[in-house]
């Protein structure tokens, strides 16, 4: 397997994680990248921030689940169902370990990061936020970490404020301090911005927020797939992620929350599996995390998420980060050398994940994406579900190239060449 080789040939790097690994060698593990795309050209997939491609091992894990281990989980008194339950719960343990959670009882399976945030907004929010309370989010958030708080504020009469951004795409720390001084109930912010690539200093900000008496919800959708993340070490109170962005299947994600917070929260959705006892008069809830998992969960998807975590752990998350950091540096250098290309977000590679958002003078980002697509390069163009970022920088949209384990310097070259070609084309 290519993963095996990449890990082995990269052995010296084990002690030098700053070196990363050869992404091109991993492509053989990803069927969609291994096959020739249109015009015989190799597909250059630069949209992993929207959703990642899947290695053979994850696809096989799904088949294996349905071929050998499938039954509904929980309560089934037969071997197949006990086996399925054990594998489903094993996935929970693996997610917990992967994100440094103290206990798997703190990991709730959901569809995606969006549902995880909504769960907190509904279950924690409706029980804890009152008229006049303050919630703080930021101007760089994905809509998933904005709109649920707008809704919560509208329903409860709470106030929602946003930390503003600096010109180079960082959180304005003075503005943050000013808002924290007003004693918010919650600070909800992203570890990594999907629209700008900015990596936020989570430990520091969390310390400040806690000192101000706020709980912290971390949107880790763009960090957990790309760098070592330990919710324990970061000190946050809630964290959310999506499996489909970390080599896992669609339809599965997770909420992590501190046990005492989850215990105290009422449920969100209700139905089978999250219940201890139902009578016509009322209901007793199950314990966490099951209290928050109503109905039949994404069983095979959870099992396949284990395979995704296996793949990432075999690479090593510090080396995944090193790999993407080197791609970012190469991409940033190449694109900033082009005339008429503006790059968004901080230039410092310590503060920037493997996401490069840019605009080209005189060419609309949608046109850039279409031209790149005709060259076999998949990038995203639009507001990246972060319209306030577009408003902040007064642009209609950006083009975004985002990197993952299967990208390599040759992808940066193809991207750069294609942008040059687009510029020539539009210059006429």
């Amino acid at each position, binding site marked *: 397997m290519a993963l095996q080789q990449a890990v082995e040939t990269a052995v010296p790097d084990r002690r030098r994680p700053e070196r990363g690994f050869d992404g091109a060698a991993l492509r053989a593990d990803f069927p969609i990248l291994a096959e020739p795309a249109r*015009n015989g050209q190799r597909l250059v997939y630069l949209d992993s921030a929207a959703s990642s491609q899947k290695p053979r091992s994850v696809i096989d894990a799904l088949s294996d689940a349905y071929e050998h281990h499938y039954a509904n989980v929980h309560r089934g008194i037969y071997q197949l169902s006990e086996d399925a339950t054990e594998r489903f719960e094993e996935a929970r343990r693996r997610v917990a370990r992967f994100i440094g959670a103290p206990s798997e009882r703190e990991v709730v399976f959901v569809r995606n990061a969006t549902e995880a945030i909504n769960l907190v907004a509904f279950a924690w929010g409706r029980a804890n936020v009152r008229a006049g309370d303050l919630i703080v989010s930021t101007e760089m958030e994905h809509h998933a970490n904005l709109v649920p708080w707008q809704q919560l504020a509208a329903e409860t009469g709470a106030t929602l404020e946003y930390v503003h951004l600096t010109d180079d795409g960082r959180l304005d720390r003075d503005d943050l301090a000013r808002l924290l001084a007003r004693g918010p109930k919650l600070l909800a912010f992203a570890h990594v911005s999907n629209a700008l690539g900015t990596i936020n200093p989570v430990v520091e900000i969390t310390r400040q927020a806690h000192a101000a008496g706020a709980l912290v919800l971390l949107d880790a959708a763009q960090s957990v797939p790309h760098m070592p993340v330990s919710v324990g070490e970061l000190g946050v109170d809630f964290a959310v992620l999506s499996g489909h962005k970390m080599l896992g299947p669609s339809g599965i994600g997770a909420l992590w929350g501190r046990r005492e917070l989850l215990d105290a929260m009422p449920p969100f959705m209700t139905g089978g599996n999250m219940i201890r006892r139902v009578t016509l008069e009322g209901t007793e809830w199950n314990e966490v995390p099951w209290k928050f998992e109503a109905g039949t969960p994404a069983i095979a998807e959870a099992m396949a998420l284990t395979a995704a975590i296996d793949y990432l752990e075999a690479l090593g998350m510090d080396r995944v980060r090193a790999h993407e950091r080197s791609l970012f540096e190469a991409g940033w250098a190449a694109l900033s050398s082009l005339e008429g290309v503006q790059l968004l977000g901080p230039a410092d590679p310590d503060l920037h994940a493997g996401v490069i958002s840019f605009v080209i003078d005189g*060419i*609309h*980002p*949608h*046109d850039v994406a*279409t*031209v790149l*697509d*005709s060259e076999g390069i998949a990038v995203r*163009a*639009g*507001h990246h579900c972060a319209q306030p970022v*577009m408003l902040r920088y007064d*642009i*209609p*949209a950006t083009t975004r190239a985002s990197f993952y384990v299967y990208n390599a310097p040759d992808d940066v070259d193809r991207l750069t060449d294609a942008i040059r070609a687009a510029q020539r*084309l*539009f210059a*006429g």
Partner: protein
Amino acid sequence: MDNLYRDFILEHYRNPHNKGYLDPHDLHFEDSNPTCGDELSMTLVLDPEHQHIADVAFDGRGCAISQASASILTDELRGMSLDEAREMDPKALLEGIGVPIGPARLKCALLSYKVLQGAVRGGETAWPEAVDLAL
């Protein structure tokens, strides 16, 4: 798809027809495609009977497809009756563009159609059903 920009569209984008603002005019409408920020306005002058389109101009900013499509659409309008304009099939415009437009960009291609409908029907209209996929 590959030559989408190469020929017809880029030509219209670089050298748009009917670009500008008619003053005075009989009808005026403007709209935008919020997902990509394309903006488009259209001004129309009618014949004395107010039955046919005598002159038309568009203004706006946005992607090549939305601007080229406005250029192509407005070329067709002179002499058309208002009823004909109202009943125009959006597919005709897509065919007029002459290159296949993927679902994600249908709204770009149809913004000019939507603005025209707003002008000739006297108020905002829904996106044609064809753009559902592009939402």
